[in-house]
Protein backbone atom coordinates (compact mmCIF):
# COMPACT_ATOMS: atom_id res chain seq x y z
CA UNK A 1 0.00 0.00 0.00
CA UNK A 2 1.51 3.32 -1.06
CA UNK A 3 1.31 6.77 0.52
CA UNK A 4 -1.68 7.69 -1.67
CA UNK A 5 -3.42 4.34 -1.24
CA UNK A 6 -6.13 5.35 1.26
CA UNK A 7 -8.15 8.52 1.05
CA UNK A 8 -8.41 9.11 4.80
CA UNK A 9 -6.81 11.81 6.93
CA UNK A 10 -4.95 9.36 9.18
CA UNK A 11 -3.31 7.11 6.58
CA UNK A 12 -0.48 9.55 5.67
CA UNK A 13 0.34 9.96 9.37
CA UNK A 14 0.33 6.19 9.95
CA UNK A 15 2.54 5.80 6.87
CA UNK A 16 4.98 8.40 8.22
CA UNK A 17 4.96 6.75 11.67
CA UNK A 18 5.64 3.23 10.38
CA UNK A 19 7.96 3.97 7.45
CA UNK A 20 9.57 6.99 9.12
CA UNK A 21 9.52 6.98 12.90
CA UNK A 22 9.65 3.21 13.48
CA UNK A 23 12.31 2.71 10.79
CA UNK A 24 14.61 5.31 12.38
CA UNK A 25 14.04 5.19 16.15
CA UNK A 26 14.45 1.40 16.20
CA UNK A 27 18.11 1.98 15.29
CA UNK A 28 18.47 4.68 17.94
CA UNK A 29 17.00 2.44 20.68
CA UNK A 30 19.23 -0.41 19.52
CA UNK A 31 22.17 1.99 19.81
CA UNK A 32 21.30 2.83 23.44
CA UNK A 33 20.84 -0.88 24.18
CA UNK A 34 24.18 -1.83 22.69
CA UNK A 35 25.78 1.04 24.60
CA UNK A 36 29.53 0.59 24.54
CA UNK A 37 29.49 -3.05 23.43
CA UNK A 38 30.29 -2.29 19.80
CA UNK A 39 33.52 -0.76 18.56
CA UNK A 40 33.08 2.14 16.17
CA UNK A 41 35.96 0.68 14.14
CA UNK A 42 34.46 -2.77 13.65
CA UNK A 43 34.36 -3.98 10.07
CA UNK A 44 30.63 -4.67 9.99
CA UNK A 45 30.07 -0.96 10.61
CA UNK A 46 32.18 -0.09 7.56
CA UNK A 47 29.84 -2.28 5.50
CA UNK A 48 26.78 -0.69 7.09
CA UNK A 49 28.12 2.82 6.46
CA UNK A 50 28.90 1.97 2.81
CA UNK A 51 25.31 0.84 2.16
CA UNK A 52 23.81 3.83 3.98
CA UNK A 53 26.07 6.28 2.12
CA UNK A 54 25.37 4.75 -1.30
CA UNK A 55 21.62 4.83 -0.62
CA UNK A 56 21.57 8.51 0.29
CA UNK A 57 23.86 9.26 -2.68
CA UNK A 58 21.39 7.51 -4.98
CA UNK A 59 18.58 9.70 -3.61
CA UNK A 60 20.67 12.84 -4.21
CA UNK A 61 21.46 11.86 -7.80
CA UNK A 62 17.80 11.11 -8.52
CA UNK A 63 16.76 14.48 -7.07
CA UNK A 64 19.20 16.19 -9.46
CA UNK A 65 18.61 14.03 -12.56
CA UNK A 66 14.87 13.36 -12.22
CA UNK A 67 13.45 16.27 -10.19
CA UNK A 68 9.75 16.98 -9.78
CA UNK A 69 7.92 20.28 -9.46
CA UNK A 70 9.61 23.61 -9.98
CA UNK A 71 12.98 22.16 -10.96
CA UNK A 72 11.52 19.78 -13.54
CA UNK A 73 11.43 22.47 -16.25
CA UNK A 74 15.10 23.41 -15.94
CA UNK A 75 17.72 21.77 -18.13
CA UNK A 76 19.60 18.69 -16.91
CA UNK A 77 22.94 20.26 -17.89
CA UNK A 78 22.23 23.31 -15.70
CA UNK A 79 21.35 21.18 -12.66
CA UNK A 80 24.35 18.88 -13.02
CA UNK A 81 26.62 21.86 -13.74
CA UNK A 82 25.38 23.73 -10.65
CA UNK A 83 25.87 20.64 -8.49
CA UNK A 84 29.43 20.11 -9.79
CA UNK A 85 30.27 23.81 -9.29
CA UNK A 86 28.93 23.68 -5.72
CA UNK A 87 30.85 20.52 -4.91
CA UNK A 88 34.06 22.00 -6.37
CA UNK A 89 33.57 25.16 -4.28
CA UNK A 90 33.06 22.95 -1.21
CA UNK A 91 36.33 21.10 -1.82
CA UNK A 92 38.27 24.28 -2.70
CA UNK A 93 37.00 26.12 0.41
CA UNK A 94 38.34 23.33 2.64
CA UNK A 95 34.97 21.68 3.09
CA UNK A 96 32.80 24.67 3.92
CA UNK A 97 29.25 23.41 3.33
CA UNK A 98 27.88 26.96 3.18
CA UNK A 99 30.33 27.84 0.36
CA UNK A 100 29.22 24.81 -1.63
CA UNK A 101 25.55 25.65 -1.16
CA UNK A 102 26.09 29.34 -2.07
CA UNK A 103 27.97 28.62 -5.32
CA UNK A 104 25.57 25.86 -6.45
CA UNK A 105 22.54 28.06 -5.79
CA UNK A 106 24.15 31.06 -7.52
CA UNK A 107 24.92 29.03 -10.66
CA UNK A 108 21.41 27.56 -10.66
CA UNK A 109 19.63 30.89 -10.16
CA UNK A 110 21.73 32.71 -12.79
CA UNK A 111 21.02 29.87 -15.21
CA UNK A 112 17.29 29.88 -14.46
CA UNK A 113 16.96 33.65 -14.94
CA UNK A 114 19.11 33.71 -18.12
CA UNK A 115 17.77 30.58 -19.81
CA UNK A 116 14.32 30.68 -18.17
Amino acid at each position, binding site marked *: *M*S*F*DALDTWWW*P*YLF*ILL*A*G*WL*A*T*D*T*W*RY*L*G*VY*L*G*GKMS*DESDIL*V*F*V*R*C*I*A*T*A*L*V*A*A*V*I*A*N*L*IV*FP*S*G*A*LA*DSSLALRVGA*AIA*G*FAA*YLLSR*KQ*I*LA*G*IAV*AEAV*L*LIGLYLIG
Partner: protein
Amino acid sequence: MNENTTAESGSEESHISWYLRGVRRCFSVPGLVLVSAFVGFAGLAREAGLTLPQTVFMTGVVWALPAQVVLIGAMIAGNSLIAAAFAVALSSVRLAPMVVALTPEMRGPRTRKWVLYALSHFVAITSWVLAMESFRNVPRDLRTAYYTGIGTTLVLVNMGVVATVFLLAESLPVQVTAALFFLTPIYFLTSLWGSARERAGHVAMVLGLLSGPVFHLLLPGFDLLAAGCIAGGAAYVWHRTRLKRGTGK
Protein backbone atom coordinates in the same frame (compact mmCIF):
# COMPACT_ATOMS: atom_id res chain seq x y z
CA MET B 1 34.40 26.41 24.93
CA ASN B 2 33.79 27.29 28.54
CA GLU B 3 36.65 26.52 30.89
CA ASN B 4 34.58 27.24 33.95
CA THR B 5 32.94 23.88 34.55
CA THR B 6 32.79 24.07 38.31
CA ALA B 7 29.01 24.50 38.36
CA GLU B 8 27.38 22.71 41.28
CA SER B 9 26.03 19.55 39.73
CA GLY B 10 22.70 18.13 40.78
CA SER B 11 21.01 21.36 41.77
CA GLU B 12 17.94 22.50 39.90
CA GLU B 13 19.60 25.75 38.90
CA SER B 14 22.61 24.20 37.20
CA HIS B 15 20.37 21.82 35.26
CA ILE B 16 18.52 24.80 33.84
CA SER B 17 21.67 26.77 33.16
CA TRP B 18 23.27 23.84 31.28
CA TYR B 19 20.03 23.24 29.41
CA LEU B 20 20.21 26.89 28.29
CA ARG B 21 23.86 26.52 27.27
CA GLY B 22 22.74 23.61 25.10
CA VAL B 23 20.09 25.85 23.56
CA ARG B 24 22.69 28.54 22.81
CA ARG B 25 25.07 25.99 21.26
CA CYS B 26 22.56 25.56 18.41
CA PHE B 27 22.98 29.14 17.23
CA SER B 28 26.20 28.36 15.37
CA VAL B 29 27.38 27.54 11.84
CA PRO B 30 26.32 23.86 12.03
CA GLY B 31 22.90 25.02 13.25
CA LEU B 32 22.61 27.50 10.36
CA VAL B 33 23.58 24.85 7.82
CA LEU B 34 20.92 22.54 9.26
CA VAL B 35 18.28 25.27 8.98
CA SER B 36 19.18 25.81 5.31
CA ALA B 37 18.86 22.05 4.77
CA PHE B 38 15.39 22.06 6.34
CA VAL B 39 14.40 25.04 4.20
CA GLY B 40 15.25 22.81 1.26
CA PHE B 41 13.42 19.85 2.76
CA ALA B 42 10.25 21.90 3.17
CA GLY B 43 10.44 22.83 -0.51
CA LEU B 44 10.95 19.19 -1.43
CA ALA B 45 8.03 17.97 0.69
CA ARG B 46 5.76 20.65 -0.72
CA GLU B 47 6.65 19.70 -4.29
CA ALA B 48 5.98 16.06 -3.40
CA GLY B 49 2.40 16.98 -2.45
CA LEU B 50 2.60 16.66 1.34
CA THR B 51 0.55 18.99 3.51
CA LEU B 52 2.02 21.38 6.09
CA PRO B 53 0.91 19.31 9.14
CA GLN B 54 2.24 16.10 7.56
CA THR B 55 5.62 17.69 6.87
CA VAL B 56 5.97 19.21 10.36
CA PHE B 57 4.84 15.88 11.86
CA MET B 58 7.44 13.99 9.81
CA THR B 59 10.17 16.38 10.90
CA GLY B 60 9.32 15.86 14.58
CA VAL B 61 8.89 12.08 14.62
CA VAL B 62 11.63 11.06 12.17
CA TRP B 63 14.24 13.76 12.84
CA ALA B 64 16.86 12.45 10.45
CA LEU B 65 17.12 14.39 7.22
CA PRO B 66 18.53 11.58 5.04
CA ALA B 67 15.70 9.31 6.24
CA GLN B 68 13.13 12.04 5.55
CA VAL B 69 14.48 12.64 2.05
CA VAL B 70 14.46 8.88 1.33
CA LEU B 71 10.89 8.66 2.70
CA ILE B 72 9.75 11.50 0.42
CA GLY B 73 11.57 9.85 -2.49
CA ALA B 74 9.71 6.60 -1.81
CA MET B 75 6.39 8.47 -1.60
CA ILE B 76 7.01 10.22 -4.94
CA ALA B 77 7.89 6.89 -6.55
CA GLY B 78 4.68 5.34 -5.17
CA ASN B 79 6.55 2.68 -3.17
CA SER B 80 4.57 0.41 -0.85
CA LEU B 81 4.72 0.91 2.92
CA ILE B 82 7.06 -2.07 3.30
CA ALA B 83 9.45 -0.94 0.55
CA ALA B 84 9.47 2.62 1.92
CA ALA B 85 10.12 1.44 5.50
CA PHE B 86 12.89 -0.84 4.28
CA ALA B 87 14.60 1.94 2.32
CA VAL B 88 14.29 4.36 5.26
CA ALA B 89 15.63 1.73 7.69
CA LEU B 90 18.60 1.03 5.40
CA SER B 91 19.37 4.75 5.15
CA SER B 92 19.28 5.12 8.95
CA VAL B 93 21.41 2.21 10.11
CA ARG B 94 24.10 4.76 10.81
CA LEU B 95 22.01 6.11 13.70
CA ALA B 96 22.74 2.99 15.76
CA PRO B 97 26.55 3.34 15.81
CA MET B 98 26.18 7.11 16.34
CA VAL B 99 24.05 6.47 19.44
CA VAL B 100 26.45 3.73 20.54
CA ALA B 101 29.26 6.28 20.42
CA LEU B 102 27.30 9.05 22.18
CA THR B 103 25.59 7.11 24.99
CA PRO B 104 28.66 6.25 27.09
CA GLU B 105 29.73 9.93 26.97
CA MET B 106 26.31 11.18 28.00
CA ARG B 107 25.67 8.69 30.78
CA GLY B 108 26.42 9.71 34.35
CA PRO B 109 26.45 7.38 37.35
CA ARG B 110 22.85 8.27 38.22
CA THR B 111 21.40 8.64 34.73
CA ARG B 112 18.18 6.68 34.28
CA LYS B 113 17.80 4.33 31.31
CA TRP B 114 14.57 5.88 30.02
CA VAL B 115 16.23 9.30 29.82
CA LEU B 116 18.86 7.88 27.47
CA TYR B 117 16.19 6.18 25.33
CA ALA B 118 14.16 9.39 25.15
CA LEU B 119 17.18 11.55 24.30
CA SER B 120 18.35 9.13 21.62
CA HIS B 121 15.47 10.37 19.45
CA PHE B 122 17.34 13.67 19.01
CA VAL B 123 20.45 11.97 17.63
CA ALA B 124 21.08 13.06 14.04
CA ILE B 125 24.20 14.33 12.36
CA THR B 126 24.14 17.96 13.58
CA SER B 127 23.18 17.38 17.23
CA TRP B 128 25.64 14.49 17.39
CA VAL B 129 28.52 16.62 16.10
CA LEU B 130 27.65 19.49 18.48
CA ALA B 131 27.43 17.13 21.45
CA MET B 132 30.63 15.20 20.68
CA GLU B 133 32.50 18.51 20.34
CA SER B 134 31.18 20.05 23.55
CA PHE B 135 30.68 17.21 26.03
CA ARG B 136 34.21 17.36 27.43
CA ASN B 137 33.43 20.86 28.72
CA VAL B 138 30.19 19.78 30.40
CA PRO B 139 30.08 18.19 33.89
CA ARG B 140 29.18 14.55 33.42
CA ASP B 141 25.90 14.46 35.32
CA LEU B 142 24.68 17.60 33.51
CA ARG B 143 25.32 16.28 30.01
CA THR B 144 21.76 14.96 29.67
CA ALA B 145 20.44 18.44 30.52
CA TYR B 146 22.85 20.00 28.02
CA TYR B 147 21.91 17.54 25.28
CA THR B 148 18.20 18.07 25.98
CA GLY B 149 18.86 21.77 25.26
CA ILE B 150 20.56 20.98 21.95
CA GLY B 151 18.02 18.36 20.87
CA THR B 152 14.79 20.15 21.71
CA THR B 153 16.02 23.44 20.23
CA LEU B 154 17.11 21.93 16.91
CA VAL B 155 13.87 19.94 16.54
CA LEU B 156 11.51 22.77 17.49
CA VAL B 157 13.32 25.48 15.50
CA ASN B 158 13.38 23.33 12.39
CA MET B 159 9.72 22.32 12.76
CA GLY B 160 9.05 26.08 12.77
CA VAL B 161 11.33 26.61 9.77
CA VAL B 162 9.52 23.90 7.81
CA ALA B 163 6.11 25.40 8.60
CA THR B 164 7.27 28.93 7.69
CA VAL B 165 8.76 27.88 4.34
CA PHE B 166 5.60 25.94 3.57
CA LEU B 167 3.48 29.05 4.08
CA LEU B 168 5.83 31.38 2.17
CA ALA B 169 6.53 29.04 -0.74
CA GLU B 170 3.20 29.77 -2.41
CA SER B 171 4.02 33.43 -2.98
CA LEU B 172 7.56 32.84 -4.25
CA PRO B 173 8.60 33.05 -7.92
CA VAL B 174 9.19 29.69 -9.57
CA GLN B 175 12.96 30.22 -9.79
CA VAL B 176 13.21 30.68 -6.02
CA THR B 177 11.09 27.58 -5.39
CA ALA B 178 13.42 25.66 -7.70
CA ALA B 179 16.43 26.99 -5.79
CA LEU B 180 14.86 25.89 -2.47
CA PHE B 181 14.27 22.44 -3.88
CA PHE B 182 17.92 22.32 -4.98
CA LEU B 183 19.18 22.97 -1.42
CA THR B 184 18.56 19.39 -0.29
CA PRO B 185 20.72 17.55 -2.87
CA ILE B 186 23.52 20.13 -2.52
CA TYR B 187 23.48 19.96 1.27
CA PHE B 188 23.86 16.18 1.17
CA LEU B 189 26.34 16.21 -1.70
CA THR B 190 28.70 18.20 0.52
CA SER B 191 27.88 16.95 4.04
CA LEU B 192 27.89 13.29 3.00
CA TRP B 193 31.40 13.69 1.57
CA GLY B 194 32.59 15.42 4.73
CA SER B 195 31.07 12.87 7.12
CA ALA B 196 32.69 9.83 5.47
CA ARG B 197 34.82 8.03 8.02
CA GLU B 198 36.99 6.14 5.56
CA ARG B 199 37.90 6.20 1.87
CA ALA B 200 35.30 3.51 1.21
CA GLY B 201 32.63 6.06 2.13
CA HIS B 202 33.74 8.28 -0.76
CA VAL B 203 33.74 5.28 -3.12
CA ALA B 204 30.24 4.34 -1.94
CA MET B 205 29.07 7.90 -2.49
CA VAL B 206 30.41 8.18 -6.06
CA LEU B 207 29.05 4.73 -7.01
CA GLY B 208 25.70 5.57 -5.39
CA LEU B 209 25.48 8.86 -7.31
CA LEU B 210 26.13 7.06 -10.60
CA SER B 211 23.91 4.05 -9.96
CA GLY B 212 20.89 5.94 -8.56
CA PRO B 213 19.67 7.29 -11.93
CA VAL B 214 20.60 4.02 -13.71
CA PHE B 215 18.48 1.89 -11.36
CA HIS B 216 15.76 4.52 -11.46
CA LEU B 217 15.36 3.63 -15.14
CA LEU B 218 16.08 -0.11 -14.83
CA LEU B 219 14.26 -1.01 -11.59
CA PRO B 220 11.64 1.65 -10.82
CA GLY B 221 10.25 1.12 -7.31
CA PHE B 222 13.33 -0.71 -6.08
CA ASP B 223 15.90 1.77 -7.37
CA LEU B 224 17.06 3.03 -3.95
CA LEU B 225 17.42 -0.43 -2.42
CA ALA B 226 19.24 -1.77 -5.48
CA ALA B 227 21.59 1.21 -5.71
CA GLY B 228 22.28 1.14 -1.96
CA CYS B 229 23.03 -2.59 -1.80
CA ILE B 230 24.99 -2.88 -5.06
CA ALA B 231 26.99 0.37 -4.89
CA GLY B 232 27.49 0.04 -1.11
CA GLY B 233 28.44 -3.62 -1.42
CA ALA B 234 30.93 -2.82 -4.20
CA ALA B 235 32.49 -0.06 -2.07
CA TYR B 236 32.87 -2.51 0.82
CA VAL B 237 34.50 -5.12 -1.46
CA TRP B 238 36.89 -2.36 -2.61
CA HIS B 239 37.60 -1.59 1.05
CA ARG B 240 38.36 -5.26 1.82
CA THR B 241 40.69 -5.78 -1.15
CA ARG B 242 42.56 -2.58 -0.38
CA LEU B 243 42.91 -3.60 3.27
CA LYS B 244 44.32 -7.00 2.31
CA ARG B 245 46.80 -5.48 -0.09
CA GLY B 246 47.73 -2.58 2.18
CA THR B 247 48.43 -4.45 5.40
CA GLY B 248 49.70 -7.61 3.72
CA LYS B 249 47.47 -9.82 5.89
